[in-house]
C-alpha cells in the first residue's frame, strides 16, 4: 500500500471519529447549558422598560431582537451594520449548506445557488470588518480577550476555506454529499481526498466542540435574557411574579 493512501485513511478515520465526537459534545454541552438556564428561576421581575405588557408583545420584542438587533442600532450604527450583515451572511450560508445534508434538496436552496457565493463573501468581509473594528477602536481593544480572538479566528478560517473550496480548488459535490449522508446515516464512507475540505470540515467540528463553552452561546441566550423576554405586568391583577426559592422572614 502506498504511504499516501495510509495517511488518507488515517485522516479519514480521524475525521469520522471527530465528527461523531463533536456532534456528541455539542449536543450534550448545549443540553447541559439549556437545562442549567431553564431550571434556574428568575426570582423577581427584571424586565427593562418601556416594555410590552402582554406575553405576545414580549415574544415580538425578542423576535425583533433576534432578527433586527435594534439595541445595537441605537448603540452604534457601524457595529450594527457589520454585525447584521455578518449574521445574515451566516444564516444564508447555513441554509445553503442544507444541500449537503438533504436528499432531495429543498428547491429554495437550489434557487439561491446563483447568489450563494455572494453571501460567503459578505460573511467573510463582515468578519474582517468586525475584527478590524475590535483592533482599531481603543475601547474594544481594551475589552477584547483571547476567547474573542479564538471565535473570530475559527469563523474567519471556516469562511476562507469555505470560499476556497467553492471557487479556487473546488471540491466534488457528490463526494461531499456521500460523506455527509454517510455520517448522518451512521454508515460512514471515506471523505473527499481534498486537503482544503478536510481543513474546512475540521474547523467546523472544532467550532461545534467549542460552542457550548464559549460566548457563541449568545445564539441561544438571546432568547433567555430576562430583561427582554418578559412582559411588564407588575400592576396587572393575577400576574404576581412568584419567587420559588424565597423563604419567610425570621
Amino acid at each position, binding site marked *: 500500500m502506498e504511504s499516501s493512501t495510509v495517511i488518507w485513511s488515517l485522516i479519514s478515520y480521524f475525521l469520522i471519529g471527530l465528527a461523531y465526537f463533536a456532534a456528541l459534545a455539542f449536543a450534550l454541552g448545549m443540553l447541559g*447549558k439549556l437545562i*442549567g*438556564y431553564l431550571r*434556574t*428561576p*428568575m*426570582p*423577581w*421581575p*427584571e424586565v*427593562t*422598560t*418601556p*416594555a410590552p405588557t402582554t406575553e405576545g408583545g414580549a415574544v415580538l420584542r425578542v423576535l425583533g*431582537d433576534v432578527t433586527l*438587533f435594534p*439595541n*445595537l442600532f*441605537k*448603540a*452604534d450604527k457601524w*457595529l450594527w451594520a457589520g*454585525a447584521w450583515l455578518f449574521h445574515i451572511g451566516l444564516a444564508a450560508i447555513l441554509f445553503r449548506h442544507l444541500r449537503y445534508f438533504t436528499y432531495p434538496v429543498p428547491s429554495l436552496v437550489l434557487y439561491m445557488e446563483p447568489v450563494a457565493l455572494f453571501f460567503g463573501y459578505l460573511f467573510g468581509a463582515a468578519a474582517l470588518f468586525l475584527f478590524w*473594528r*475590535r483592533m482599531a*477602536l*481603543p*475601547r*474594544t481593544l*481594551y*475589552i*477584547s*480577550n*483571547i*476567547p*474573542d480572538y*479564538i471565535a473570530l479566528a475559527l469563523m474567519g478560517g471556516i469562511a476562507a476555506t469555505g470560499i476556497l473550496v467553492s471557487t479556487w480548488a473546488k471540491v466534488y459535490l457528490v463526494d461531499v454529499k456521500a460523506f455527509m449522508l454517510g455520517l448522518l446515516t451512521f454508515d460512514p464512507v471515506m471523505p473527499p481526498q481534498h486537503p482544503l475540505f478536510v481543513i474546512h470540515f475540521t474547523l467546523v467540528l472544532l467550532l461545534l466542540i467549542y460552542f457550548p*463553552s464559549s*460566548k457563541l*452561546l*449568545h445564539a441561544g*441566550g*438571546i432568547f*433567555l*435574557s*430576562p*430583561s*427582554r423576554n418578559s412582559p*411588564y405586568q*407588575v*400592576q396587572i*391583577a393575577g400576574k*404576581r*411574579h*412568584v*419567587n420559588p*426559592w*424565597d423563604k419567610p*422572614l425570621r
Partner: protein
Amino acid sequence: MAKFDETPIIKDPAIEGILTPPALREHIASGVRCWPSKEKDTEKINLPSSLVPDWQNKAIEKFAELLDKNQALRVYMDICVRCGACTDKCQFYLGTGDPQNFPVARAELMRKVYRRYFTTGGRNMPGLNDSADFDEEMLHQWYTYFYQCSECRRCSVFCPYGIDTAEITMAAREIMSSIGVSTKYVTEVVAKVYDTGNNLGIPAPAWIDNCQFLEEDIQEETGLPIRFPVDDYGADVLLVPPSADNFANTDTMIAYGKLFYKLGIRWTTSTYCNEGGNFGLFLNYENMKKVNKRIIDAARMLNVKTILWGECGHAWRGAILTPTLNGPMDMFDPPYPYHIHQMLVKLLRQGVFKGQLDKSANDHYVVTYHDPCNTARAGQLLDEPREVLGYCVNNFIEMPRDTIRENTYCCGAGGGLLTDELMPIRMAGGKPRALAVKHTQANFLSTICAICKAQLPDSMKYWDVPVEVGGVLQLFTNALKY
C-alpha cells in the same frame, strides 16, 4: 391629554459633540472607594462585620448559590460577546475615562471569576479563557468598581442581548456582603431603617415635629389649613415618600399635602415606615425584603385602603418588587403597587382638575425633565410625569433624545453612591446629565426621585449649570388654584 411628542426636543448633534467618549485612562478612578462598613451597623442587619475566615471559598459558594437562584445572572455570565456597544454608554466612564467603568469591563470582573470556578475551560486552562482567581486583588477591584456602578441599567438598553449590569452588580455586592465586605453608607442607611423607619434616621418625634412645622408654615404663607397627618389610623391612603422629602426636599412634601388637601383625601404617613427608598437593593436580598416588608406592615397597622408611592426612584423599584417580596397585596384597593403620578394622571384625564390649573403660575420657569433611572428603565413611568407637566407648565423643553426616557443618564449618585467620599465619582458621573441640561438652557430641572434631588444641585453647580432642581409635583401644585 398633552401631546408631549410635539414638545421641542433638541436633536442630538450638539451634545454628541460635547460627549465624545474620553481617552482611556486605566484605573484613574481606582482610588475612589466607599468607607468600609462599621460593626455597629452590620450587626443590626445580619452581616459579618469584617472579612470572614476562608472568605475565598465562602465567596465562591455564595456565587454558586446565586447562579442557581438567578436566571439573569446565569445567562449574563455566559452570553456577552464583548462587542463594545455599551462601552461609551456608562456615565461613570464618560465622566472619568476609566475603562474599568465600561459596563462590560465591570461585568468581566465577575465573569473572569465565573469562568475560573464554573466553566470547564476556565478550570483547566485559565489563561486561554481569560479567567482569574478570586484573590485579594480581585476582591479589591470588585469593591472599587461594583461601588462605582449606580445600578441604573442604561447599558442594558444598548446591549443587543439586554444584559443588565444592575443584576451583576447586585449579585457581586451580595457575595461581598456575605463575606464581610460592605460599605459604611449602605449598611448605615439600612440599619437606620430598622431603628427609625427611614433612611435619614429621623426619629418619630422629629418626623411629627417637621410635619407640624410645615403645617404652620403653609398656614402662614397661604392661609390654607393643609394637614400633614402622621399615623392616622383608618386613613384612605398611606403615602410612602422618601424621607428626604420631609427634611431636604420639603417643597415636595408640601406638594403632597396640597394635592391631598385639594382632592379631599384622608391620607397619612407612618412613623413605622416613612421611607420608600429601599437600600436593601444595594446590599442583599434578605435586607431588601425586610426593608420592603415595613411598607406593607405599616399599611396594615394603620388599616389604610391603599398605598401610594411618592417621588422616589428606588422606592418605585422596590414597589414593583413588593408583590414578589412580600406577598399578594390584595388586601388593598387595586391597582397596586400605585405611584402618585399614575393616580394624578388618571384624575387629570377624568377632568378632576378642569379649570383648576393655572399654567402661567410656572411661567417664570423654563422646565426640563430628568428621568430617574429606576422610574424610566425599571418602572415604566415614562409618560406620566411628562403628562402631568403638560397640564401645569407652559415652557417645557426636552433634553436631547439620547439622554431622556429609557436612554436617560443616571444623576450620578444612585445605587448607594450618594455619599461624600465618592464625590469625585459622583461629579464625574453627573457630567453627561449636566451637559444635557445646560444644552436646554432650562432654569428648572424637574425630576421624581429623592436621590436625584440630592445629587443634581451639587452636580449642576459643579458643572456650572444655573438651574433650580425640584419635583414635578411641586410644579403641579404651584399651578393648582385653591
